[in-house]
């Protein structure tokens, strides 16, 4: 009796907006928010395909030329691929910096994987004395801003004579603790059954790690490497601090200056720079979501 009375009152209570209207409203709000992301990107893309004179007509002030009203456009009036050709074939500076970025980022990521994945496996899978304080140390190091470890790193790199070499960026990055944290969280979600099966099949600890850990924990590995790539690709504090010589600079440090040197290619250079992380993200999106989801499990 009481139950049926209640259901009626619910039916009356939750009538307000028809489902279709609510769904449409949701889409409108979502689309409006997404415009905040799309508009800057489209502005950028449009500008990347503008010939030099149009660029200077529209964006003289942002490019560092004389003060003049900005005439923004979502499409170029005279589309041209010349900026890209200019950038790829006639900008040796850009070319060098692009490779510097690759030389610094790829070994750093390889190292993060080779060093970090086993460490994460140890934290996720084995009980051992001192595990808790050690993991706390790793989390603390991950939370501390670069500026805190900057001096420490500087002192070591100076003593090892690595300052002003690519190694000055690579080595500290290899032992970053954030990837270890992400991979640990992901390895923790691997069901024990899988491992027990491997042990029963006679696998040792190393085999278990290589065959079960790496295979089942790969979303965490992909996530750690993807986030690591984004972080290192955009490195700014580290090269500013450890690389005096401009010929060693990565793209992230060089790009802001490119507008002064070659205004015509500035936007195209920006597009080229954002391509690798964007493409990697679009390819690894589902792993990234899984890996990040795993990192949120039980604190």
């Amino acid at each position: 009796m009481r139950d049926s009375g209640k259901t009626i009152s619910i039916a009356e209570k939750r009538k307000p907006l028809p489902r279709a209207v609510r769904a449409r409203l949701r889409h409108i709000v979502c689309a409006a928010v997404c415009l905040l992301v799309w508009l800057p990107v489209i502005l950028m893309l449009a500008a990347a395909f503008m010939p030099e004179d149009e660029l200077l007509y529209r964006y003289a002030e942002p490019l560092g030329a004389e003060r003049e009203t900005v005439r923004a456009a979502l499409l170029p009036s005279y589309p041209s691929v010349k900026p890209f050709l200019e950038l790829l074939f006639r900008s040796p500076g850009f070319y060098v910096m692009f490779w510097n970025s690759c030389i610094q980022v790829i070994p750093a990521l390889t190292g993060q994987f080779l060093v970090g994945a086993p460490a994460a496996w140890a934290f996720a899978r084995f009980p051992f004395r001192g595990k808790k304080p050690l993991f706390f140390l790793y989390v603390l190091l991950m939370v501390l801003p670069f500026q805190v470890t900057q001096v420490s790193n500087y002192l070591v790199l100076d003593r090892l004579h690595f300052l002003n070499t690519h190694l000055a960026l690579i080595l500290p990055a290899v032992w970053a603790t954030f990837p270890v944290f992400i991979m640990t969280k992901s390895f923790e979600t691997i069901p024990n059954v899988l491992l027990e099966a491997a042990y029963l099949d006679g696998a040792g600890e190393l085999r278990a790690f290589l065959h079960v850990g790496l295979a089942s924990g790969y979303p965490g590995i992909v996530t750690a490497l993807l986030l690591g790539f984004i972080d290192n690709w955009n490195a700014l504090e580290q090269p500013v601090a450890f690389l005096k010589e401009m010929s060693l600079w990565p793209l992230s440090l060089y790009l802001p200056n490119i507008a002064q040197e070659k205004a015509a290619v500035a936007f195209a250079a920006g597009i080229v720079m954002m391509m690798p992380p964007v493409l990697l993200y679009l390819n690894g999106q589902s792993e990234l979501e899984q890996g990040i989801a795993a990192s949120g499990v039980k604190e």
Partner: protein
Amino acid sequence: MNTGGKRKSGIRRRQARAAWFFLAPSLAGVVVFTAVPFADVIRRSFLDAMGRTGVGLANYAAVCGNTAFRLAASNTVRFLAVCLPLLMFTSFALALLVFRRDGRGNLYKTTLVLPMVIPVAAMVLVWKIVFCQDGLLNEFLNWTAGMAGRAGTTGGGEAAGGAVQVTKLWSSDWVNSGAAFPILIVTYIWKNAGYDLMLWLAGLASISESLYDAARVDGAGAWERLRYITLPGLSGTFGLVLILSVVNSFRVYREAYLLAGSYPDMSIYMIPHLFSHWFLTLDVQNMCTGSMLLVTAALAAAAAAALARVVFRRLGKSG
């Protein structure tokens, strides 16, 4: 019994050995690159500039009395105090908006995560297009002012409108003015909402749908479902979102540096700026002391968080 215990301890020992084997390469690097030099940092923070004689807490007193440090510290605290709640709320609201239980290819989600991936160095020019002296923001404000002016003076509209356009009410250089602070906050949220969004979405997906169904049957409205199911279900996620937002908040230096250079407006002069100045002048002593202060602050925050958790649990149990 006894043999079982023995075997167990044998397994224990074997596992511990395996653990150290896996951990060694990472730990060795962390020790060499961070732990050992950090011990040196601690030592130097108590020594004089030459690193010879101990001066007690004099360095700490000097750094804390330093005007630049005070400015940087208070700006950083202010930035965190404004940004963290704003970011967490925005990303949570977006998560509620975007969340779908089937979780398949969702263009909105992809879009909102995208800024996290886009290098700031590449986007700086767009920011300049918007915020420079003759940029889009000022154009828009002038246009609105022009419209308002025209509407206000219906009689001599032509002349007044023209006058407004000529004088240009708005021509501030936003990034190099007091407005730099809000601009930095907007940039930070634009950049970081995606990451938090993914965390919130994962948390939302982990809450069982049957809870919501049961609540619906019991007549709970949308608000009550949010209050009594969603929010408690996300308490674990909350901690991680907070930690990672703090981590990322120090990276905002990249945005600040790229937008405003190393000598920005006073309102966005933060701890990283100060450190980079100390670094340029190789003021090792101040850097060491400053690092120690930051670590202490981080540890204090961690302790406070742990304490808060214990207190909450007690309250939860008793209540």
